[in-house]
């Protein structure tokens, strides 16, 4: 493999990295605060993306405004789901919560085409923020970087940066970290865990909506399925004991796929799955994870 191809492949992976990190971060945020894996994450994001498409493409609004509207919808959905469904369950365990989100997935996937009957498979997605590409020379090699991908990366960096800063420096972030380490104790220390988890669900939904909008596929209710599977894998690959490790997992996955695709495009994903599963087997707590200590 020559240097040009190598660099180009890395640049090509940027969009995937941006998208999967946004999707993954939502999963890890919910996992840390509510101790469950959210199967409905992709469906909520799809709903937000459909809202954005409805306003941005069908009604002809500004794309950025419609994106914000989509994010707000997903934000509200997250709050509603956490408040009225996840919290209300009578002593539901983790597997039960997981299945509740699976029920939500069923509901959303079926309701989306009915609510947005104007959006069909031929509707252009809100994916075209920009056209053309940025051509530059790096180490004597000509590289092109589409503006679309650049905008997605910028969005991801800004949004994730903002959330990480909030986690580090705000009272909400402290609350999230406290809830993540132990919900009962956090409650006893005066943390309003209800607000914390509701906001986590909301932020996860909003971030995943951006991921859905930056995805380069046709619109359909199941469009986030793959991103979600990769998100889960990235979480386990990176390790769920910190917020940053799953993002590293989300960086590894698209890069591996793109490099494998150079040799064989049909089997690229299979190769990625095999590599990632082997890595997880070697390090069951994740590449950067700490061992969970179980009490008897």
């Amino acid at each position, binding site marked *: 493999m020559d240097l040009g191809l190598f660099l180009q492949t890395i640049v090509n992976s940027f969009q995937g990295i941006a998208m999967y990190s946004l999707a993954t971060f939502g999963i890890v945020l919910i*996992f840390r605060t509510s101790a469950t*894996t959210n*199967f409905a994450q992709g469906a909520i994001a799809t709903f937000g993306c459909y809202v954005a498409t409805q306003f941005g493409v069908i009604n002809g609004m500004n794309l950025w405004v419609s994106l914000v509207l989509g994010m707000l919808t997903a934000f509200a959905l997250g709050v509603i789901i956490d408040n009225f*469904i996840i919290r*209300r*369950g*009578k*002593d*539901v365990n*983790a*597997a*039960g919560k*997981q*299945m*509740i989100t*699976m*029920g*939500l*997935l*069923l*509901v959303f*996937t*079926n*309701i989306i*085409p*009915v609510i947005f009957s104007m959006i069909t498979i031929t509707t252009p997605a809100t994916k075209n923020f920009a056209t053309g590409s940025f051509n530059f020379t790096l180490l004597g090699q000509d590289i092109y970087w589409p503006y679309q991908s650049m905008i997605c990366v910028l969005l991801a960096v800004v949004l994730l940066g903002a959330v990480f800063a909030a986690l580090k420096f705000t009272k909400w972030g402290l609350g999230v970290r406290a809830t993540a380490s132990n919900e009962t104790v956090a409650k006893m220390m005066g943390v309003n865990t209800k607000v914390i988890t509701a906001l986590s669900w909301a932020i996860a939904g909003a971030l995943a909506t951006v991921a859905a909008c930056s995805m380069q596929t046709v619109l359909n209710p199941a469009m986030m*399925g793959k991103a979600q*599977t990769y998100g*889960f*894998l990235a*979480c*386990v690959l990176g390790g769920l004991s910190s917020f940053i490790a799953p993002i590293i997992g989300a960086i590894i996955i698209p890069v591996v796929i793109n490099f494998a695709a150079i040799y064989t495009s*049909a*089997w690229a*994903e*299979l190769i990625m*799955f*095999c590599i*990632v*599963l082997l890595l*997880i*087997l070697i390090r*069951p707590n994740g590449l950067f994870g700490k061992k969970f200590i*179980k009490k*008897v």
Partner: protein
Amino acid sequence: MIKNKMKNPLVAKIAKVSKHPYATFIYFGLATVVLLLLQMFTPLIKYSFVGALAQTMCYAIVAVGFSYLLGYAGLSSLGTAGFVGLGSYITVYMLRTYSGMNYFVVMLIVLVVSIIIGLIVGFISLRIEGIFLAIVTLGLSEVFYQVFMNATEFTGGSNGTSFTGEVNIFPGISLGREGVFIMIAVFLTAMIIMTFNLVNSPTGRAMLAMKNSTSAAQAMGISLLKYRLLAFILATIYAAIAGSLLMTFNKYTDPKSWTIMFSLNILAACLLGGTRSIWGIFIGTFFVFGLTPMFLNDIVFLRNNPWLLSTIIGVVLILVLMFYKGGLMQLLHDIKKFVNNKISKRREFKYGKDEI
């Protein structure tokens, strides 16, 4: 009269046999065959109903196998779809390539492959636990999906694959649609009887102990290695055999049937009915897989709006999980208790307290 009946040895024997714990399972198997006969000889039951019933019965086998993992061993797996698909694809490949091959030989191959896969996943489950295990098995299922999708010369790629021709079970005996239906009923009955035996034996109790606390189970001398492997091998065997049976009935399969949605549906069927009750699992499977194609497709409004039904299933799933941890079986139990309570109250009101 009554005395005579008691003396008659045949009647006494029948009375004894009908109280045997297996009897209800066998009645269930026979009832499905009766439905088939009704379809064949009377216009009471539709052709499509029997087809849907056969498929639901195959899914019930998968769900019963899955209950070893979820209900007894306490392991979560999302790889079911991959294992069922594997059983289907091995069967179709064998039957198409070696036409006229005995089906039981094919099933033996499926069995061997599923034991190997079950062993592998079982060993993985020793290293990885809980939600992580679910995600790793999901990844494994994706690996199978990629193979089904891309190994086009074996699997036909995304268009799926099919075979025509009959299923030979013995030299000279081949099964048509009805024969395969009866075979599915026999397998289902045999497998639930096996499950019933196994979960009420020391094996089932050991698995249950493992579910409640692995450390306590180990302290009592229960080998995690042995029982985890056993649970995964059993679940994989049930899944692969169900996939194989489904293939012989449908004679067609494609990769889209074996995505994560299928695994989640099986999980939903188990949780909906109640993970540790065979009848509960049947109810759950019927609700998730059977209800729509068997009955509700006849209602024109629902047929034109298929989204409504799936949404209702989703909502019911959420409500049951939120308020009835034990599933629909617990709900039935509660209703029974409620009715009995009311009846006894009514009696008390009518006849006074002392009379009861």
